[in-house]
């Protein structure tokens, strides 16, 4: 019986495997230690002056998308356009006219993090950045 544990073309196969592993892991070790720093969204002067957003900063950071979804449903479906936050302050539920009224710089505020996190919310396909419209 022939010894079928013998590996044919051992040198070529192992060399090929080594090159393959190196190539496939290339992006990982090439970018090692070069992680882009988390962006710090820049607050506009108006937002700074307002001190508090609709909700506390931490909540806004993690839940602004849920809040916006809730807003759009209440505005479109229930025709209720005024939002009252826990501290009793009233807001007109509008992305273009309330959110962007304070956060004037969409590029510096929204896009910075969204680009970093590689999310592309489709809000802006319809909703207008008042600054761009001008």
């Amino acid at each position: 019986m022939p010894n079928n544990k013998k590996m044919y073309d051992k040198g070529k196969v192992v060399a090929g495997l080594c090159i393959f592993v190196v190539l496939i892991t290339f992006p990982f070790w090439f970018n090692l230690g070069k992680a882009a720093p988390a962006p710090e969204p820049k607050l506009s002067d108006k937002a700074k002056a307002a001190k508090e957003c609709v909700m506390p900063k931490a909540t806004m950071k993690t839940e602004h998308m849920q809040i916006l979804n809730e807003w759009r449903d209440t505005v479109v479906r229930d025709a209720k356009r005024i939002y009252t936050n826990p501290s009793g302050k009233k807001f007109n539920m509008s992305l273009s006219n309330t959110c962007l009224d304070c956060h004037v710089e969409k590029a510096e505020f929204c896009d910075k993090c969204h680009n970093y996190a590689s999310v592309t919310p489709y809000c802006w396909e319809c909703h207008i950045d008042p600054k761009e419209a001008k």
Partner: protein
Amino acid sequence: MVIDTRKLQSEEDLEPMIEVCDKIHNIPKFENKNHEIKWLWAEEFKHEFPMQEPDFLNDRLKHMSFLTLCNHCEKAPCVRVCPTKATFKREDGIVLMDFHRCIGCRFCMAACPYGSRSFNFRDPRPFIKETNPDFPTRTKGVVEKCNFCAERLAVGKMPACVEASNGALTFGDLDDSESEVRKVLRSNYTIRRKPALGTGPSVFYIV
């Protein structure tokens, strides 16, 4: 809504209303007729009231332009066929669209017997002359139609066309027997578009 066509004789009379509607709702103007977006537009008698055309229609009506818009039907077929409930009937009777939910299947366009719905075959943004930042545009792949100026009603204003009509248009609550529309309906003979279909259109025409 009641449209007094006696006060709107020519296409020029309709122009200011159509213009203001197009402007505040960011309605694009396409060269290609197939891509046209219509919220408020003009139509002649034979297209406006088919099957209701008498044999010897008087000349005034025959050559007149009628203001045409979504009828906000009582039993709206578009609401019934919408698979995602993007089109829905509000409690106050307005047939409204949630563009976020529209998947662009166009069942509603097939269902609407009035041609009140338009599809965005292209991105409308480059074709909007002046963008109104207070109202969103639409995106490619959604259907749209007249919303009876829901955004204006919310802040206590009349629809833009009513405001621009110099009293030719009356808008109000059809269920309230004391409302202005009901008073106008009580004292005038009105017709509706394709009433035999049973959709119950809410736009009445004094002819």
